[in-house]
């Protein structure tokens, strides 16, 4: 069984972590006890570079894992406590899934969908005034008096 060790700089919730993974090395290991798919614990011989690993790929599961903890044991053993990274493991299926997305960085700017979280000032407004033409009303019209008189 092989475990490939990486350093991962991507966010936990980054689906495709490929660009953020730097491989350290592959390490062969033998299971000395049960290893679960979701939270495997892998015993390895200690090596200095293993300490730098925070991410790994376990070939028997074909899955990617966060290295949550490392336990140094006597006899120069180190145990990697892993938990599955479901996002990267199933990234192709996830990215091909149909979703209903309510928030996204994708548009690059606010959309027509009202956003209550958008940092709009709750009270300050910008007032713009547009004068609509010159109109007809004036304070000094020349013949302003409209006289109605009986008779035709």
């Amino acid at each position, binding site marked *: 069984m092989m475990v490939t060790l990486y350093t991962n700089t991507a*966010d936990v*919730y*980054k689906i*495709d972590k490929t660009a953020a993974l730097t491989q350290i090395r592959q390490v062969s290991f033998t299971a000395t006890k049960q290893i679960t*798919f*979701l939270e495997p614990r892998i015993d390895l011989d200690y090596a200095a570079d293993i300490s730098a690993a925070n991410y790994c790929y376990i070939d028997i599961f074909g899955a990617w894992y966060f290295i949550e903890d490392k336990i140094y044991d006597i006899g120069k053993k180190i145990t990697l406590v892993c938990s*599955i990274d*479901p996002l990267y*493991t*199933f990234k192709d*299926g*996830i*990215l*091909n*899934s*149909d*979703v*209903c*997305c*309510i*928030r*996204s*960085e*994708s*548009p690059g700017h*606010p*959309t*027509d*969908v009202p956003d209550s*979280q*958008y*940092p*709009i*000032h709750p009270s300050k*407004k*910008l*007032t*713009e*005034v*547009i*004068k*609509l*033409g010159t*109109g*007809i*009303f*004036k*304070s000094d*019209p*020349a*013949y*302003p*008096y*409209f*006289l*109605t*008189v*009986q*008779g*035709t």
Partner: protein
Amino acid sequence: MEVNRDFYGYTDGIRIRGGAATPGYTTTEIYAANFTGASPATEAAGQLASGVTQGLFEFGAALDGSIQTHGIPFDGESYNTLANFKGIDSMGSTDNMALSMGIEGSVPIIWGYHPRTSLTYNTNYSARPVTYTNVLWGPQKSESPDATSLVPIIKMDFKTLLYVPIIIASTNTYNSVPDEYGRLVLNGSWRTAAVFTLETYLNNYFNVYPTIQAVGLMSFAVDLQEDGTIPGFDFSRCRISNQISPFRNLMYNWTAGTVSSGHYAPTDGEILASGMDLCGPFMAQRDVVFNYTTTAGVVAQYTEPSGGNIPIILGCTMPNVGYRRQSPDLISNFWKGVTPCYGANHIRFAYQTNAEYIQVPVWYDAPQLPEILREAVHRMMSYLGVMWADDIGGIETGDRPIYIGTIGDDGLATGTYTRVSDPSEIRQLSSDDFINDSTYDPSRIDPNVYTDVMESGTAPDVGSCNRYYALDRENLGILYSALTQTLDGVPTGEKEEYLLSHFLTTSPGDLIVSLKWYPFDFYNLFFNTTEQPKIIFIGDLPLEYDQFNVVGYKARTNTSFSVTTNIGFFKLFRKYGDFRDYSPFTSCTIYTPFCTPIKLDLSVCMDHIIYVQMCIDLLTGACTAVIRLDSTQGIIVGTSSGSCGVDLPVSSLDQATYNNATFSAIQETKAANKQLASQYIGAVSNGVMTAVTAGTGKVPKPAQAVQAGSSGVSGVMGVLRAWDTKIAADYNLSHIPEHYKEISTVTSTLSMLLPLNSYAIIERPQMLPGDHSQYGHTVGYATLYNGRLGDLSGYTICQTADLSGFAAPSSVKDMIYQALRSGVYV
């Protein structure tokens, strides 16, 4: 309407039988005029030879029997270009008929006439730009109601190529003032400059004259080269008789050897098959007549040893009149290279006979239509704004496509086309069944006709018994003074009668119905300012004060005192391009003077041009602000009423007159009562005396007024009663009409302190201070996207997700689902 679909099995169309023929009609033809060339007879460009009438090839299809005749005036004489259509012996100049162009289905052709291609101007045309949408013909002499709402399907007979003459304006004379929609409309008549093929026009002239005046379709013949390519054919020099129905087929076997100039009799050839039999009413059952002379030019000829269906001569005679000089070139060009294409088995050609000639265009019939020709026809059709198909039957079943041209961003055809996705759902008119398409669901058709215009009304002249004047301050100032001088010089005692005779009232001020002040020059709108101000009359007396006439502009007769004036407009600009442009973040209030400000509904008004109008009623002073969308006749989105006229009090005037009248009345009453009193006094005395002396002897009876009574007491009572009456008359002023005016409220003057212009007050949101550039990356922009997650990028929060597309433990999918809902980075 009689429909005949059979065109010898190769083409289909709808043809209509017509009525009576126009007698005395000799020949008509059109020519695709090459205006750079001389006219056939007179050498003048574009001039037609004397006696030659000109028609234009027209085509069309019957639309529920509503076709109209094309009548093209020529030198003032209208004629039916199709009237001389042989075979229709009964055709009349007003009868409806149509030529078949292989058109099947309903065609939204707007009937009308092709403008003549000569340079003889005809002012009957009214030029309008032709759009590419369902208008195949340009300006119309008479409007046709034939455009239907049915989908037009033009069945293409790919054995012919469409020749599309484009009639363009030779001058660009537009009205200098755009219409209310900002369009420049061609002014007056226009004339054609040339007729081009569509391709030629688009390649060479499109940018010169952007206005296509008319687009026609002409069936035309073309031969293909052996390699299947379309020859370079100069359509512009071709002529087609308008009498030709290209789908009248004739297979003719020429057996008289090589054709050369000369006369030939129809018996020189043998008609193998006559489309006349099959083309129904358009063909006469008569023999083919070849009749051409050397002056008509040499006919291109072709012979081939017979065998099977033999490609035959194409014979073409030219008319005895006209275009002789062009004839040879025309014919040679027309028929050039006529050879059977590879794989051809016969040539079909149609002909038209008349007493003088045959014109025989020919087209080529190939069993396998080269794709290049098909594509060429498709391309041409794509410019015409109609749908077309190559198999009507297949459309009805949905097995064959319907094509439609695509429109570019500039709104013009691109020469490309696409297919209608499901032809069976398009309601079609087939010649077999006018109600087609089992999938057509009329209940899903929206019967409403929508508009974006709300026309303004016109206030009528309601009439009245009043006169209306516009006064300036100076004349108003002397108006009252002039009124007070009305009695100057009138002798005392005659004043009342004078007043009544001139004013019908003792108070001339009564004749002033109202005096309002308006904050705008209303007289420009309602009064005849071309005339000088006139003397103002009260009653029948002109007003003057100290020899100065009181003058004012007098309203025109039949004036309506309501007006709608445009205040202004603005564009309600979408500043942000997102939700912030709408309520409650942004608001827009229209302030108009004298009216309550109007708050706009931004969901309706945003990104529109907002027009503000004011409707004013001069008689009442009422005004209403009206907000419209996008034009002065656009949808009304808000109104607000108010008052802009100030009702000026005239009570001071009335008070003075009132006092005068009261005084006068009192004076007159007292004068009358003096006389009465003397009568009573005498009566009382007499009565009393009578009563007193009743026992002593004779006593004179009171003369009058005293109630006769034998007793003195009643006589005294009567006197007292009489006195009461006098006293009442002295102080009872009920007979004097009260004519003081209430002083009306003057709120309009207060409004004058507010702005007199209209303003749009827009409040827009502001951002909280700070750097928000990472908002999208950390919070994500609110959106509503349904689709593939991989099409998004960056920080994304999903509301739901369908994770059924891959295999994973349920607990893992649960984790994924929760992660998507809390936010992931794609």
